[in-house]
Every structure is written in structure tokens, then in C-alpha cells.
């Protein structure tokens, strides 16, 4: 049923439909509306979940870890500093192969303190062993949570999944969303049936010390599962489309006018809506431009990216995060995807935009296409304010 709803409310509604046994969260802007709505649903008796109001994000992640190990479906949501504060547990959850699902309401990180959107928070946790998928709009944000549980709880996977949605832009944005009906949700996502759990009828020990004789294979196993998850995401998208009547190709990338394109921007998340508009405008003027939208950042779909861009002469990677002192995070992956390959773009330029909520406008995207020339650039910042740079550094 189509509803005009706030992103956060839509997420709360879809989490309610998945009937988690335990929800735990600690408030941080811009995640708050999601968990407030869930708390109200619990208070109203609309869901039977246990809602644990913790004293920190570290404990929120630890509570869902313990509950997941006890064999119930769990949910948490956070953002920015909250994600960083729970980072230790985030890695731990993946190592313990627990199918936790989390919403990251993407937000800039301190200092300076800034509550607005970029993607530095989740991107900084790329190596944690979580699948990370990025939504462009609230329809996707809703759908991706169902896909997240389905993938996480797949016995071939058993890894946590982070659904990343741009803070404020999506979490607080009002959009039309086709909310999945409960019976279809039940069909697509059966109840969680754990492989192992803490159960007095069958005592097991979890979280053991692995010395150098055993540790490395556990990391290898996650790496192999991540690689296989590329295929599972494609497989699950087919089933999702058939149940809900959507049109997701493979949940890895979306190709938008890339086939004959001479210039393509690679980006992730809600900014892709803006980029699509610019692509449409420039196509109308006869310019061969396109967008490759990354949906899955971990696992990174190298083969799909290669196939999509191997004949494109110039590629601009637009990162909403930086790796200070190095190439920007997505740019690094793109360069790696083509290194040593026969085909590929002659130019892969890297641009950084939208940090700390700086608007990425149609003009910003035009500027990226303009700066995408034969001369390759790296971590070229878009929309800097010259007058502020003068204040900072002098002439």
C-alpha cells in the first residue's frame, strides 16, 4: 500500500513487520525518529519485541549481540559517533557470525561536531565484516531491511547487515513509499531459525579464544562468505521482485545510461537521485553521460563494476567521505577494479563532495562532469568556499 511517510517512520513500520524479538538502541540524531516510533509501537502493544533502553551504543550493540546469540531476531540503529562508539562490538558481532541487522542513518563525524549527512561513519567501518548496502530513496531503505534480514539469516551467510540511509535526506524526508504487506513479508522472510544458540537444553560455548593455530581460518571464512554474498544478493533480489513486484536488478549496482556513455559518475546513496537528474538534463542536450550507482559497498562488486564501466573512457568517483592522507574510499576500489585489466577507463578521477551536509546541488554534479577531463584528479573537493579557506590559511 502506498503511503506518504517520513523515512524513519517507514523504517520503523518495516522493522515492526519483521517481528524482532529484541530491539536495543541509544539515541543519536538523525537515527532517533526510527527508534522513537518503534518504542511507541512496543508501548502500544503493536509488537511483542523487548525494547531495551541502554546507556550507550556500545551496550546497544552488545544487547543485540546477546539476544541474537540466544536465538531471536534483533534490530538496532545508530549513526556517526554512535557507530564509532559501538565499533568494537560491530567487529565482534561479525566475528561471531550473528545475523544482526542495523540501520545506519549516515552522518558526518566529529570534530568539528556536525549532525548532518555524509557517509564517513559507515564507510570507516568497511572492514568490520558487515554487509553494507546503501539506499537511494526511502522505498529502497524499506525494501533493503527485508533483504538485509533475509541475507543475514541465510545459513550460507550468517553475517550482520548494515542498511545505510543518508541522515536527514532520507531519514527525515517525506516520500511516497509502497509499504510491503505483512503476508508478503511473512512469505519472503520466515521466522529466524538459528543454527546455534545459547540454550540450557543443549549447552554450547560461544566466543572462544582462538590462538594462532585457529584464528586465521575464521577470518578467511568471512572473506569467502562475503565473496559468495555477491551471488546471494542477486539471487535474493530475484525472489524479492517476484514477491513484491519490484524491479531490483542484482542489488549490487544500478546502471543509469552507462552503455554508450563517455563520462560516468560512480556514487552511492541519495545523491544518485540528483545525479540522475543531471544525467537526464545533459542527455537531453546530447551529452553521453551516465551514472553507476553502487548499492553494495561490502561485499564490493568488482566484477559488476568492471563489466559496467570497461568501455567508458572517463569515470568520476564521487565520495561523500575521505580517507585523510590517501585516495578517497570508493575511488580506491574503482582503481583496484581496473588495475591490470585489458579494458577500462583511461581516466578515473576522484571527487569529494557533501561532507558534513554541504548540499550537493545540480550545479555540483555539473561541476564534477566539467572537471572530469583527460587530466586525472584525486580527492578533488567540490563546492569548497574560497572565503573560508582564506580565513583558515591566509592568502
Amino acid at each position, binding site marked *: 500500500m502506498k503511503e506518504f511517510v517520513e523515512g524513519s517512520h517507514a523504517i520503523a513500520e518495516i522493522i515492526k513487520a519483521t517481528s524482532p*524479538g*529484541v530491539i*536495543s538502541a541509544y539515541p543519536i540524531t538523525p537515527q532517533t525518529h526510527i527508534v522513537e516510533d518503534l518504542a511507541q509501537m512496543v508501548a502500544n502493544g503493536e509488537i*511483542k*519485541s*523487548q525494547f*531495551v*533502553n*541502554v*546507556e*550507550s551504543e*556500545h*551496550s*546497544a550493540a*552488545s*544487547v*543485540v*549481540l*546477546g*539476544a*541474537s*546469540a*540466544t*536465538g*531471536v531476531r*534483533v534490530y538496532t540503529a545508530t549513526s556517526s559517533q554512535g557507530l564509532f562508539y559501538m565499533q*568494537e*562490538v560491530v567487529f*565482534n558481532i561479525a566475528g*561471531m557470525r550473528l545475523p544482526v541487522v542495523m540501520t545506519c542513518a549516515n552522518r558526518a563525524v566529529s570534530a568539528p561536531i556536525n549532525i548532518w549527512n555524509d557517509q564517513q561513519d559507515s564507510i570507516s567501518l568497511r572492514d568490520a565484516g558487515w554487509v553494507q548496502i546503501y539506499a537511494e530513496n526511502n522505498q529502497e531503505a524499506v525494501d533493503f531491511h527485508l533483504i538485509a534480514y533475509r541475507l543475514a539469516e541465510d545459513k550460507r551467510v550468517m553475517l550482520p547487515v548494515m542498511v545505510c540511509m543518508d541522515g536527514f535526506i532520507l531519514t527525515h524526508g517525506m516520500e511516497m513509499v509502497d509499504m510491503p504487506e505483512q503476508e508478503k513479508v511473512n512469505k519472503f522472510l520466515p521466522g529466524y531459525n538459528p543454527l546455534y544458540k*545459547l*540454550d*540450557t537444553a*543443549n*549447552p*554450547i*560455548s*560461544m*566466543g*572462544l*579464544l*582462538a*590462538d594462532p593455530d*585457529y584464528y586465521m581460518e575464521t577470518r578467511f571464512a568471512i572473506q569467502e562468505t562475503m565473496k559468495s554474498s555477491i551471488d546471494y544478493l542477486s539471487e535474493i533480489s530475484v525472489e524479492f521482485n517476484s514477491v513484491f513486484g519490484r524491479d531490483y536488478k542484482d542489488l549490487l549496482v544500478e546502471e543509469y545510461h552507462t552503455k554508450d556513455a563517455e563520462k560516468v559518475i560512480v556514487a552511492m546513496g541519495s545523491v544518485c537521485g540528483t545525479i540522475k537528474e543531471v544525467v537526464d538534463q545533459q542527455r537531453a542536450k546530447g551529452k553521453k553521460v551516465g551514472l553507476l550507482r553502487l548499492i553494495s559497498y561490502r561485499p564490493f562488486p568488482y566484477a559488476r563494476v568492471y563489466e559496467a564501466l570497461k568501455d567508458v573512457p572517463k569515470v568520476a568517483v564521487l565520495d561523500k567521505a575521505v580517507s585523510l592522507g590517501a585516495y578517497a574510499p570508493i575511488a580506491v576500489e574503482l582503481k583496484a577494479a581496473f588495475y591490470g585489466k585489458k579494458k577500462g577507463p583511461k581516466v578515473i578521477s576522484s571527487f569529494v563532495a557533501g561532507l558534513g551536509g554541504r548540499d550537493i546541488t545540480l550545479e555540483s554534479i555539473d561541476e564534477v562532469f566539467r572537471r572530469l577531463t583527460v587530466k586525472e584528479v584525486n580527492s578533488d573537493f567540490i563546492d569548497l568556499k574560497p572565503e573560508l579557506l582564506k580565513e583558515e590559511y591566509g592568502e
Partner: protein
Amino acid sequence: MENSPLFRSGHTACAGCGQAIAARLVIEAAGANTIIANSTGCLEVFTTKYPETAWGVPWIHSLFENSSAVASGIEAALIYLGKKDSTNVIAQGGDGSTGDIGIQALSGMLERGHDILYVCYDNEAYMNTGVQRSGLTPFDTNTTTSPQGAQSTGNLRPKKPVPEICAAHGIPYVATASAGFAQDLTRKVKKAISIKGPKYIQIHVPCPLGWRYETNQMLSVAKLAVETGLYPLFEYEFGVLAGARQITPKPVEEYLKTQGRFKHLLNSPEEIKKVQAVADNNIKKYNLKAEV
């Protein structure tokens, strides 16, 4: 002692370890219908080195400071599954994971009212990493990060009153116990398990490596801590002191001379006097002196 199905032999604790004995007494008192969330530390390391485990109950280790929160999640899941009434949940860790790095998670667990017993095995320093000072290290103790030297008599701060901090939460039950008093310890664990809500028991567990005593002296060292008044055994109910084990106080020197960590105090009557003042204060505060 016979082999226990809940805490099996073959673990790798040091000879003379008070924590191993206390942990066994705790789980035997709590029984098979118990799930344990264990912090990182000696107990975790010496009982669960892959591919072996000493535990005969469901047991989970996640991190150093989060066993209270992990246990909170386990309890919440059990409530959701309708299994809480038939299952005990214990969170446990050492003094560092409890009173230093984990005190926030512990306070949260107590404040939220979870039906969980928290057990702190207090060996009074970070033993698993090599005897570094914790907030629960006693006054004038020589540790690797509070060493005795020309300008220092060791740890210059008093022991952090974690049981009182827990009691201040107004929870139904707080107790201290000792590896040297097994029956008292068992009674307190059984009592705690019978009460619904958050409970905290802190057990004094001698460590031969960190305290430097002969391994066959564990019980007598533990007993002397109680008998001198340096480790009072008391109970709080709903934030109010409900009783303490009565002693005929022995001079603290008898306890100090049993351990290498206090060796530097033995030629200093002035320092011994300061430690005696700690015991005297406990004796007064908890009314420990047996009526004659």
C-alpha cells in the same frame, strides 16, 4: 573435589588460583539452568581456549567491558521466548572488567532492572595482562603499573567501593564473598538466584601470580583478608546494609606478610599503620567485631 559437570577439570588456571574455585562454586550453586555471559579476562582465557571448553552450561564471551549488556540481551531474548522464569542469567568478569572499563554497562544493567546476577571475581588487579593496577587494587599494593619505588609505596589510592556503588542503585541484593569461605559464597549465590531483579556479588579471589604467595596457601590468604577486616563480607538489601560476617580482628600485618605484593610494607610501621586504618574503618563501618 569431584569433577563437576558444569565446570569441568582440564582448564588451564594456575595452581592456587582462587578464581577457578570461586567460579566453580558459583555455577554449582546456580545450577544447570543457567546461561553465562563472561567478560574477557583470566576466567575466559583459561576455560575456553578453542577447541576446548570447561563449561557445562551455555556460555558466551564477547568483549572486555560488555558482559552486563550481553547478559541484558540474553535476558530480554529469554523473556521474548517465554523462557526467563526457568533460566538464570549470570554475567561475570574480573575487577577491571567490572569496576573500571565495564562499570557503565554494569550500572545500565542494574538501573534497567534486568533479572541477572552479576558476579565480580575480584583479584585486585589486571592479572590477565600481567598484574597492572585496577581501580579495585588496594592501597599500598605493589603492581606493575603502581610499582613501589623510592618515591612511592605502590598504589596510592584506596580500593574503589564497587559493591556500594551497586547498592546505591537500590537493587534487591548486593554481597561480598570470598574464595576462602565456600559455604558462605554458595549461600549467597543461591540467595541471589532466588531473588528476581539485578543482583551483584563480588568475590575476593587470591591470585598466586599477582599476589605472590605459595600456591598451597590460597585458602589461608583469602581467609586472612576477611579476618583482618581488609575484605569485609557483607550483604546489602535494597541499598541498606543487611548484615556482615563477624570477625575477631587479626592485625593486618598477618595478611600483608603472606604476599609479595605487600613485602615492601613490612619494614615500614608507618605504612602498616595506614593499612591497619583501612581495616579499622571497615570494622567500624560494617560493624564486623564479634561481640564477646
